[in-house]
């Protein structure tokens, strides 16, 4: 198969009560890409990530990973297959040390079984990668928000993913931290991990994404290169307009 996508979804739909949080969305992500997912608050971005990672169940449509249907699997199976994620509202293990947080990923999330020593070594090197090696023994709950977000990335990478879902990694960070996060994302791509990310920081998205998908009221309203998205009338109407405005304040 020449055109097999790493991740693809067909007519992905999820209702909450009468509300269509995600409706009939077709999407794909190719190997090595950084794909951005944008849309106003409540557009259904997090819900789409939750559907991919099986945090919530998919009611109709299908999601395939490397050509294999993954909808219906449990979260831990999805993780083992090679999809890792971070959370919009950070979910570290606050009482466990930073190293233990990452170690858990190496021990349980990786598709291959690692010995304890190997897992520990890998966790340490990932902490270095994420710039957290000084804090190994600190309880994760004591870290700053920016560090907790980096920790989530390190923990996700410890599961040796092929695809990483990043849900608003930059939200709540200051400009320096945002620059750091952007650098981290390019480094992740350089490791050969495909990235699918949600972000409200438009400038960052325009810089690092190869392709952007726009959701609005649960529907996909546009898709294309950053330049195409920036030029699209529909997108500017529903989304970019207010964002640019808000960003200039």
């Amino acid at each position, binding site marked *: 198969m020449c055109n097999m996508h790493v991740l693809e979804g067909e007519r992905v739909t999820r209702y909450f009560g009468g509300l269509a949080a995600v409706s009939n969305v077709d999407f794909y992500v190719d190997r090595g890409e950084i794909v951005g997912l944008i849309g106003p608050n409540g557009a259904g971005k997090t819900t789409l990530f939750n559907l991919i990672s099986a945090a919530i169940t998919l009611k109709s449509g299908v999601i395939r990973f490397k050509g294999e249907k993954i909808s219906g699997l449990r979260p*831990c199976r999805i*993780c083992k297959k090679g999809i890792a994620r971070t*959370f919009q509202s950070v979910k570290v*293990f606050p009482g466990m040390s930073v190293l233990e947080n990452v170690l858990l990923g190496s021990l*349980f*999330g990786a598709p291959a079984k690692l010995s304890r020593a190997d897992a520990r070594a890998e966790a340490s090197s990932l902490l270095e990668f994420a710039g957290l090696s000084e804090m190994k023994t600190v309880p994760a709950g004591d870290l700053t928000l920016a560090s907790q977000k980096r920790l989530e990335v390190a923990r996700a990478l410890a599961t040796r993913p092929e695809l990483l879902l990043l849900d608003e990694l930059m939200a709540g960070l200051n400009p320096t931290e945002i620059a750091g996060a952007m650098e981290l994302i390019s480094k992740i791509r350089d490791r050969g991990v495909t990235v699918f990310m949600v972000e409200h920081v438009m400038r960052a998205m325009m810089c690092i994404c190869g392709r952007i998908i726009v959701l609005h009221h649960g529907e996909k309203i546009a898709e294309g290169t950053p330049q195409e998205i920036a030029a699209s009338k529909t997108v500017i109407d529903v989304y970019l307009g207010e964002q640019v405005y808000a960003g200039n304040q």
Partner: protein
Amino acid sequence: MNISTVLTKRSVVGGLVILILLIIFITLPLYAPAYTVILLTAIFMYIVLTVSWALFSGPTGYMSLAPAAFFGVGIYTAAILGMKLPLIVVIVCGGFFSFFLALLVGALTLRLRGIYFAIFTFGLVMLIAYLLLFWELHVTGTRGRFVIAVGHNTVYYIMYGNLVILLIVAVFVRRSKFGLALRSIGENEDAAAHTGVNVTLVKIVTFAISAFFIGTAGAVMATRWTYIDPFIAFNPLFSFMPVLMAIFGGTGQLWGPIIGAAIFAYLEEFLITRFPYYYMLIFGIILVIAILYMPKGLVGLIQKWRKGGGVV
């Protein structure tokens, strides 16, 4: 360098203490009066209940009030099979029946979070008790049962063996990657699931292992009580006690529940026959005080005190 020598020194001392305790408890029935042996059996029983409870509920934060159900299953197993099979087989059966009950209950209910899990497990204890009562009244036409009595040294040794095996299992769980997974579930279950932990499996298996030891403890104790009925066997106190003892001791370290259980079991032995109501009253007061002023139990208190000492 310095730290590692201190650590090894500490672990050598710790190992020696454990060895000495092991020997003392093994040889105890040879020279101690029967009364001491019986008292220690009761203390061991409470330690088994409490450490088992803390094995699952400590790290995961799921507050189980099911111990009395598993304990009761052990007791009734001993009562029903006691006449027909060798003692050890009966006791292991008690453990396994509890184990399977826990698998079933766990599969059904461990998706209930927080308070619902606590009240569900409590309801389970009462449901079994009432159904058993009905069964005895209307099907077998009896009320209660007699259990064959066994010498108290035998009871002591079996309970002791049970405790030692449980402690080995508990140490192993704490140190293994399984223990790490359990803690991650307590810290953030969603994150654990998305980091590859099969949360359902880990929870159910641990719940069942903890039930196994509670069941064996019940089967052993049944032989000491000689007469049982549904409300003796499925007494909700056997759910509350381990929770209190574990909270009082603190679940952060393995020795927390052990110390908590030992203290209360000792207190109970002295107070319950003479002042049963005052005992329960004191029990309640200590519970409230412990929750208010030492939420991490004795363990937390000692750690805080040590840290404070270090700084000053």
